[in-house]
């Protein structure tokens, strides 16, 4: 069996959100869209600003029997003093904002996610599925929160890695 394929989609805008498929980046920025360069929509740590919340989900396709045990983690949720990356797995869509999402620091050990449906990642889902074909995993919401204690100055922060894992047959 060839196995599943995966792409990452992003949702922006008012509920139920507009999907942009096959995202190649997940840059935090100050605007809620999938097109504006982060370089022209930066986050000012001097003002303790937060990024716009970023909502993305794994979209499975291809040929598979079962998917289960989904987890997602980040390699580092505090890449410097004054920088925090927070995150949670969503059961429903909420339009992104720049105010604090209220999520805790993004897990470095792994948040569990469920597999929802062939049309949307937003819902309770199930921890395992044998539906086959297209399947959206529950979405991950992340936000970069800054404080004026950040001493890195203007420019890019170090790149982070978000890892999705699952069991497949």
């Amino acid at each position, binding site marked *: 069996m060839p196995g599943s394929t995966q792409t990452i989609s992003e949702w922006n805008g008012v509920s139920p959100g507009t999907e942009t498929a096959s995202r190649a980046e997940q840059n935090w920025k100050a605007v809620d869209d999938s097109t504006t360069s982060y370089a022209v929509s930066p986050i000012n740590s001097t003002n303790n600003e937060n990024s716009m919340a970023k909502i993305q989900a794994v979209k499975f396709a291809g040929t598979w029997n079962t998917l289960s045990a989904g987890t997602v983690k980040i390699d*580092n949720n*505090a890449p410097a003093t004054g920088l925090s990356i927070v995150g949670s797995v969503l059961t429903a869509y909420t339009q992104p904002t720049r105010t604090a999402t209220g999520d805790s620091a993004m897990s470095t050990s792994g948040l569990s996610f469920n597999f929802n449906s062939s049309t949307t990642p937003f819902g309770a889902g199930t921890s395992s599925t044998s539906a086959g074909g297209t399947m959206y995993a529950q979405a991950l919401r992340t936000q970069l929160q800054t404080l004026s204690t950040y001493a890195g100055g203007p420019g890019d922060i170090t790149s982070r890695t978000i890892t999705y894992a699952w069991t497949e047959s």
Partner: protein
Amino acid sequence: MANEVNGEVEDKFEPHPGVEDGTVVTSIIDGKKIRERVVHDVDDEGNIIGSHKENIEVK
């Protein structure tokens, strides 16, 4: 000829946000002042593993 250095560089993991737990900060979000509280996230042993902000009020 340049000196060769072998080794690995790891990210510095510094989960302390630089302020005490419960510190209230004023954030500027799209031109508006937002008051937020910084909360430390701790593990079962009380170690700081990150932090997050909570909204207090909008002015």
